[in-house]
C-alpha cells in the first residue's frame, strides 16, 4: 500500500514541474529512507542500487538509443522532410484533399527514418498547415492530420519507443518466467518488437488516409505548393535517399543481418553522409547535432537512472506483488487486466511522457500481465500504440504542443484539440483491433525468426 502511496506522491510532485528524472529519484529516496527508519527493509536493500546503475551503463540494448537519436537529429538538419514534401506533393497534383495524403505519407516515411516527433510535427506544421488551410481544409482537420502524422514515428519501426519498450519488456518477461518457475527462459528482443509493430503501423497509416479521404473538403481550392529557394532534388532522389536509409536500417534488422544497435549506427552514419553530400551540413552543424543528441540522450538516461531507484524502492515495499495480486484477482483474467492496464497507460499519457511511463509503469505491470499469459510482442505493440496516442491527447500531448508553437494565429488551440480527437479514436480502434487479432503483431516476427 505504501508503494502505491509513493506512486501517487511522485505523480503529485511531478506536476510541480521540477525535472522528472530528479523528482522520481528524490521522492523514491525519501520513501526509501522512511522504509529503512521504520524497519520495513534494511539499508542494504538500497545499496543494490549500485549494481542496477551499472546495469544501465552496461546495457547493450540501450546503446541503440543515442545512435537513433543522432540519426533523427541529423536528418532533421538535412531537411529531409522538405525534400519529401515537395517531391510527394507533385504526385497528387490538385486532387481532392491532396495535401492531406501528402502529410500522412511524409509522416509515415519520416517515421521510418527518424522517429522524432517534435521535428516532424514542426516541419509539417510550418510547411503544410498553411497550404491545407488554403486548400479549404477546416483548421481542426488540418491540424489534427499534421499532429497525428507526426506521431507515426513512435510506432513505425525503427523507433526509440520500441527500443526502450523492448528493453523493459525483455527483463519483465524474464522476471515473469522465473516467478512462474520456468528457468530455461525465452527472450523477447527489440528486433521482435520492430517486426511486430510494422504491420499495425502500416494499418494505422491506411486508417489515417481513409479518415482524410472521408473528411477532406469536397471542393478543394487548387493551391500551388511554394517552391523551395534552392533547387529541389529530383523526385527520385528525394524519395530514394530516405527509402535507402529505411531499407538499410529496417532491412538489416528484420533480415537478421545486424542487431538494432548496428543498424542504428549504419543509419546514423548514413544520415551524416547524406547531409554532407547534399551540402546541408558542415563540421560546425554536425557539432550542433551532436550536442543536441547528447542533450536528448542525457534526458532519456537520467529518467532511467531516477526510475531505477523508484522501482527498487517500490518493490522493496512489496509493490510488485501488490500490483500482481491486484491484476490477477480481477474477474475475467487476462482480458480485464489488459483493459485496466491499457486504460491506466492511456490516462497517465495525458500527463506523463512516454519515457516515464515506459520506465516506471511498464516494469510494474509488465511481469503481472506476462504471467497471466500475454504474449510479450503483442503486449509491446499495444503499449507502443497506446504511448503513441499520449502524444495526441489534449491538453498535454507533445505533438499538440509543438503544433501550437508553429500554427498560424487563425488556428485556435481548441481547433487543434478537436482535430486530434478523430485520430485518437482511430488509435483506440487499432489498439482494439490488435488486441482482438494478436496475429497482426505476432505473425511477422514468427515468420521472420521462427517459433
Amino acid at each position, binding site marked *: 500500500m505504501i508503494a502505491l502511496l509513493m506512486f501517487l506522491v511522485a505523480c503529485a*510532485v*511531478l*506536476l*510541480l*514541474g*521540477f*525535472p*522528472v*528524472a*530528479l523528482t522520481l*529519484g*528524490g*521522492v523514491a*529516496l*525519501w520513501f526509501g529512507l522512511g522504509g529503512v527508519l521504520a524497519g520495513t527493509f534494511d539499508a542494504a536493500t*538500497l*545499496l543494490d*542500487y*549500485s*549494481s542496477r*546503475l*551499472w546495469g*544501465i*551503463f*552496461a546495457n*547493450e540494448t*540501450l*546503446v541503440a538509443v*543515442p*545512435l537513433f537519436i*543522432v540519426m533523427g537529429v541529423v536528418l532533421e538538419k538535412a531537411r529531409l522532410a522538405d525534400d519529401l514534401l515537395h517531391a510527394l506533393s507533385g504526385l497528387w497534383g490538385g486532387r481532392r484533399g491532396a495535401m492531406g495524403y501528402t502529410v500522412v505519407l511524409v509522416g509515415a516515411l519520416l517515421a521510418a527514418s527518424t522517429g522524432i516527433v*517534435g521535428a516532424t510535427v514542426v516541419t509539417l506544421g510550418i510547411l503544410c498547415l498553411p497550404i491545407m488551410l488554403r486548400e479549404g481544409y477546416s483548421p481542426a482537420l488540418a491540424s489534427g492530420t499534421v499532429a497525428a502524422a507526426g506521431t507515426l514515428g513512435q510506432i513505425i519501426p525503427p523507433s526509440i519507443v520500441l527500443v526502450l519498450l523492448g528493453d523493459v519488456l525483455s527483463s519483465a518477461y524474464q522476471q515473469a518466467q522465473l516467478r512462474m518457475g520456468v528457468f530455461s527462459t525465452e527472450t523477447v528482443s527489440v528486433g521482435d518488437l520492430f517486426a511486430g509493430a510494422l504491420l499495425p503501423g502500416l494499418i494505422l497509416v491506411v486508417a489515417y488516409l481513409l479518415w482524410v479521404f472521408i473528411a477532406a473538403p469536397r471542393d478543394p481550392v487548387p493551391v500551388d505548393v511554394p517552391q523551395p529557394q534552392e533547387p529541389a532534388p529530383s523526385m527520385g532522389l528525394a524519395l530514394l535517399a530516405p527509402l535507402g536509409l529505411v531499407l538499410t536500417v529496417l532491412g538489416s534488422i528484420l533480415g537478421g*543481418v*545486424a542487431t538494432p*544497435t*548496428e543498424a*542504428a*549506427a*549504419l543509419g*546514423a*552514419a548514413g544520415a*551524416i553522409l547524406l547531409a554532407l553530400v547534399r551540402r546541408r551540413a558542415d563540421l560546425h552543424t*554536425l557539432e550542433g547535432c*551532436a*550536442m543536441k*543528441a*547528447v*542533450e*536528448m*540522450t*542525457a*534526458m532519456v*538516461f537520467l*529518467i532511467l*537512472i531516477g526510475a531505477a531507484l523508484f522501482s527498487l524502492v517500490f518493490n522493496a515495499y512489496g509493490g510488485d506483488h501488490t500490483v500482481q495480486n491486484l491484476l490477477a484477482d480481477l474477474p475475467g483474467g487476462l482480458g480485464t487486466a489488459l483493459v485496466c492496464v491499457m486504460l491506466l497507460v492511456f490516462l497517465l499519457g495525458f*500527463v506523463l*511522457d512516454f*519515457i516515464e511511463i515506459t520506465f516506471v509503469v511498464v516494469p510494474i505491470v509488465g511481469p503481472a500481465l506476462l504471467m497471466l499469459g500475454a504474449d510479450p510482442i503483442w503486449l509491446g505493440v499495444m503499449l507502443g500504440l497506446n504511448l503513441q496516442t499520449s502524444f495526441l491527447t489534449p*491538453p*498535454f500531448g507533445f505533438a499538440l504542443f509543438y503544433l501550437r508553437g508553429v500554427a498560424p494565429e487563425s488556428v485556435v488551440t481548441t481547433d487543434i484539440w478537436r482535430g486530434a480527437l478523430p485520430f485518437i479514436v482511430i488509435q483506440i480502434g487499432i489498439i482494439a483491433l490488435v488486441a482482438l487479432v494478436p496475429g497482426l503483431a505476432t505473425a511477422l516476427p514468427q515468420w521472420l525468426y521462427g517459433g
Partner: protein
Amino acid sequence: MRALQRGLQWGATLNSATFHIAAVSLLLMVLTCAGLVLVRYGLGLSSIAVQEAVMYLHALVLSLGLAGAWQRDGHVRIDIFYRNWSAQQRRRLNRVGTLLLAVPFAIFVLWSCFDYVQVAWQRQESSAEPGGLAWLWLLKTLMLVFPVQLLLAALWVGWGGDGTARTEETSR
C-alpha cells in the same frame, strides 16, 4: 559572495566541458560502431576490444552529458503549471527541488556506489572477455563522477545563473 559565484561558475564550465566531450564521444561512437559492422561483413574481421570501445564511448556519452544537459534545461519537466509561472516562482521551485530532491539523490548515488567502485579499483577490474579492454574499473568510476557533476549543476541551477534555467527555446 563573489568567490562563491566564481566557484559556481567554475563548476558550470566544467560541466559544459564534459558535455562537449560527450558530444565528441557520440560522433566517435557512430563512426566506430558503423565501421565495426562494415568491417565485419566486408572483411569478416571482428574485435572484442573495438566492440567494448563502443560500450565505453556509450557510457561516456550518457554520463558526461547529464549535468550539462540540466544546465541547458534539457531534462524534461511536466510543465503544466511551470510554464505559466513567473521567473521568481520558477526560481523558488528550482531551489526547493534542488535542495529536497536533486541534492539528496546525488548524494545517495555517491553513497550507494562508493563501495562498488572501490571494489572495482582494488581488483583493477577488466573485461571478462579474452581480448577485452582492461579499464573497466576506470569506466565504473563514472558512477561517482556524474553525481558530483549533478551536485555542481544543482548549485548552479539554483544559485548560479538566473535561477530559472532556460526553458522556452531549449526544452525539447
